[in-house]
């Protein structure tokens, strides 16, 4: 029998606010153990939470970017459970009224457009981290305690690990476009739980779902999903039934094991947190949030693909980087250069420079205006493409315009035919051996001679004119 997998995801993203969700401690990653802490985030008796409104702002932003309805009155609820990384023994989360509901995320899988509905997005506080030390036993680091999170819960709309991966990538790209999450997987800023069930292909009924936890990377999610689908098919094929349970994924052993069964399901005893009052997103605030939503990644992707004539891979590469795509759009908006030409620069030389130097575009001095000027100088034949690459490096690092750099480095291209002809003749005179070879039929000496001419022009000779005149002179021989 053929089976269809049904997959739903719960994605947690840490929000990149300056301070924590319910106190003024820094929310930054990587500080010394228990230094970003205070009575509030360590759950001291008597300490009380006060909501950081930036969290509401960011969560609503993600909701609007994913087509959700935003609930204007935001309440917080307590999720009660005991664990040493949770100092209050309850997590302040949202239960029956999440800040955002009923969204949809679009993405491409192998050229085909798909979508996955979002059931809800809610905000909550992160827990601390248990550090298992062989000498001192287990200690708790509360730095992460109270770092704001949004949890995005999908409908069971995904049907393969590839779809799940592309969905996750799109969530990540959207978060980075909105500038509300660091998106550093290695720091745990995006994590996800996966729900998987299978059913006979063509069936509309849902199978029993299994939840998988401890998935830390998108590629890990792919491996975990593929494993679980295969496991479930095997169980069913062997006449067994799937148990509703939570399983822990082990990305080293590449298998999952039972964490808890349905019988152990916890009762979190949610109730409205009496320490907090509902916060209302008024019209003015709502409009402000709306105004901060940029063009979404999928829309950019489709524009590059359909309007700029780029390949799917090029469009994807540009979409993935908000700053690069914005550079392209700004350059294209100037109307002075072909978008494709700007895209080529961005995907090749600009990307290479940034990779080599491990820099982000916004940390360099390159602007769209400078890039447009550069391309125009090349298009006009003022400088050669090779000289353009030299100019680009300066554009990243100095405040000068492209023209000023060309001037300073003396890179202006010589296109004066008289001057170049003199140069060509000098090169031919000083290379009699090459002429011999040419006459003997070795036409490939032309390349060498062009190179010699370029060298004699100190790189400033217009290569097209050099080619033309050299061909002309050689023909006379």
């Amino acid at each position, binding site marked *: 029998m053929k089976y269809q997998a049904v997959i739903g995801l719960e994605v947690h993203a840490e929000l990149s606010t300056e301070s924590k969700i319910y106190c003024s401690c820094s929310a930054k990653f990587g500080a010394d153990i228990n230094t970003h802490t205070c*009575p509030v985030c*360590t*759950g*001291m*008796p*008597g*300490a*009380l*939470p*006060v*909501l950081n409104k930036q969290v509401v702002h960011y969560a609503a932003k993600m909701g609007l970017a994913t087509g959700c309805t935003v609930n204007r009155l935001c309440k917080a609820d*307590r999720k*009660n459970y*005991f*664990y*040493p990384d949770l*100092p*209050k*023994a*309850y997590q302040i989360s949202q239960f029956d009224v999440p800040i955002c509901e009923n969204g949809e995320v679009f993405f491409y899988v192998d050229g085909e457009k798909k979508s996955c509905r979002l059931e809800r997005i809610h905000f909550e506080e992160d827990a601390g981290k248990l550090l298992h030390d062989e000498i001192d036993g287990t200690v*708790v680091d509360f730095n992460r305690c109270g770092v704001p999170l949004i949890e995005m819960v999908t409908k069971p709309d995904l049907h393969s690990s590839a779809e799940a991966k592309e969905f996750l990538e799109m969530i990540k790209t959207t978060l980075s476009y909105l500038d509300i999450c660091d998106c550093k997987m290695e720091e745990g800023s995006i994590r996800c739980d996966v729900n998987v069930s299978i059913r006979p292909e063509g069936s509309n009924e849902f199978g029993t779902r299994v939840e998988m936890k401890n998935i830390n990377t998108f590629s890990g999610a792919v491996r975990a999903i593929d494993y679980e689908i295969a496991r479930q098919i095997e169980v069913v094929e062997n006449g067994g039934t799937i148990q509703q349970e939570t399983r822990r994924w082990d990305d080293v052993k590449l298998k999952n094991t039972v964490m808890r069964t349905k019988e152990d399901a916890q*009762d979190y*005893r*949610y*109730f409205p*947190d*009496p*320490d*907090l*009052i509902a916060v209302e997103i008024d019209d003015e605030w709502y409009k402000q949030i709306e105004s901060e939503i940029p063009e979404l990644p999928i829309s950019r992707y489709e524009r590059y693909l359909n309007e700029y004539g780029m390949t799917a891979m090029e469009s994807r590469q540009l979409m993935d980087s908000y700053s690069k795509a914005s550079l392209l759009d700004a350059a294209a908006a100037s109307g002075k250069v072909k978008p494709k030409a700007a895209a080529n620069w961005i995907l090749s030389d600009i990307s290479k420079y940034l990779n080599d130097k491990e820099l982000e575009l916004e940390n360099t001095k390159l602007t769209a205006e400078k890039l447009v000027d550069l391309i125009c100088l090349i298009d006009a034949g003022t400088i050669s493409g090779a000289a353009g690459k030299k100019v680009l490096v300066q554009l990243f690092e100095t405040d000068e315009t492209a023209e000023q750099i060309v001037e300073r480095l003396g890179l202006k291209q010589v296109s004066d035919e008289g001057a170049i002809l003199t140069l060509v003749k000098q090169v031919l005179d000083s290379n009699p051996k090459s002429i011999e070879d040419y006459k003997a039929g070795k036409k490939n000496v032309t390349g060498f001679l062009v190179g010699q001419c370029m060298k004699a022009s100190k790189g400033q000779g217009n290569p097209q004119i050099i080619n033309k005149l050299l061909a002309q002179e050689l023909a006379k021989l």
Partner: protein
Amino acid sequence: MELFKKTATELSSMLKAKEISAVELTNDILARTDAVESKVQGYVTVTADAARKQAEAVDAKRAAGQELSDLAGIPVAIKDNICTKGILTTCASKMLYNFNPPYNATVMEKLAAHDIVMTGKANMDEFAMGSSCENSAMHPTHNPHDLNRVPGGSSGGSAAVVAAGEVPLSLGSDTGGSIRQPASFCGVVGLKPTYGAVSRYGLIAFASSLDQIGPFGRSVEDTAMLFDAITAHDPKHDSTSVKTPFEGTTYSNLSADMKGKKIGLPKEYFSEGISEEVRKNVLAAAETYKSLGAEVFEISLPLSEYALPIYYILSSAEASSNLARFDGVKYGYRTKNADEDLISLYTKSRSEGFGEEVQRRIMLGTYVLSSGYYDAYYKKARAAQRKIKAEFASAFEKCDAILTPVAPTTAYTIGSKTTNPLEMYAGDICTVSVNIAGLPAMVQPCGFDSNKMPIGMQLIGPRFGEQTLLNAGYAFEQASGLKNIIAEL
């Protein structure tokens, strides 16, 4: 000089006039404490050395000509559920037997800015759960008017030390009557402010939506003076804190003019459950108000009968979550008998650290929040709470204040109600509605019963009606002379 017999207002004038120094006053107060504390046992911790140092500092400031608050140098006792930085704060629980908070409650910061002298941490029912101070894990407190009787609770220590002359002022907290009932039992004034008027930051939570810190004094003036010092909007630390229209001004605006004021007597509060002596004295107070020119009339608050179940559902639900943090992991009591697993550490620490009443409420609260029971209990109680609020709101369209008894009886003998928790809960019948509705209410003495035990009366006001209550209390105090009652010990 027997300074301990004076009210805070009198002491304030003497300090300002430099007739006495803060050190002299503190020494006098501590001498009284030495003399009677072994009988009353109102404190968990007496901070005598720190008090003397604070007093010296106040005297130095005054000598240097600094402008000081009216409260500068006045001794104040603090209920042991209010966090005091570096000073033992136990909630009268074994669970926090060794807890030194790393921070000050907002009210402590406020009081420090007023240069008060803290005398110590007052005893209470464990985690403020109880009405007799017998649930303290440390020791019971005795009613200074009859040492065989309870002082009331949960702020029994705070009320008792004021009544015993061990201190002129104290802070308590009130979740269902925990300031008002002990004020009544001990013959002192106690004010439960409008919910949000005093910051809860640093008050170790029992039921967050009901808890309020409030002052005790032996006169309405004293109580107003301390109330002014602790009322402040605290948006940085407490989301439920509110800006009040009277912040810091009730003392200077005290007025005893009752002409034309309307006082309602809710008939449900004078039913057969209330002892004859209590009823008689409260109704006599109503007559006093009439003679002062107030209009007094009967009103009805029919939803009052639902107040107790609503209160015990909401307060226990919140408590079950608020007290979950006491798990033996981070601070306070940790069992020495845990097995290797985490659950054992939790279960044993909590079973050994919490007293019986606290465990009872945690279980009750856990039950009402459980999946399948939430709608029937917690949700329904919340809905009923809105109705009670509405009922009070419409009552206050007709009157300025509501006058009621505080408790069915005066202080009872120690041990007489400990075997039946429900009987103990029933004693809260007159006080819990106020917390459910988030309203202010004040208690002050209005007479004595045949055993010479104080009888209190309760004035309930609309939201932010504190000035009205203090004024009415001030008027009654002047008319009745029932003020600054110090128990003979």
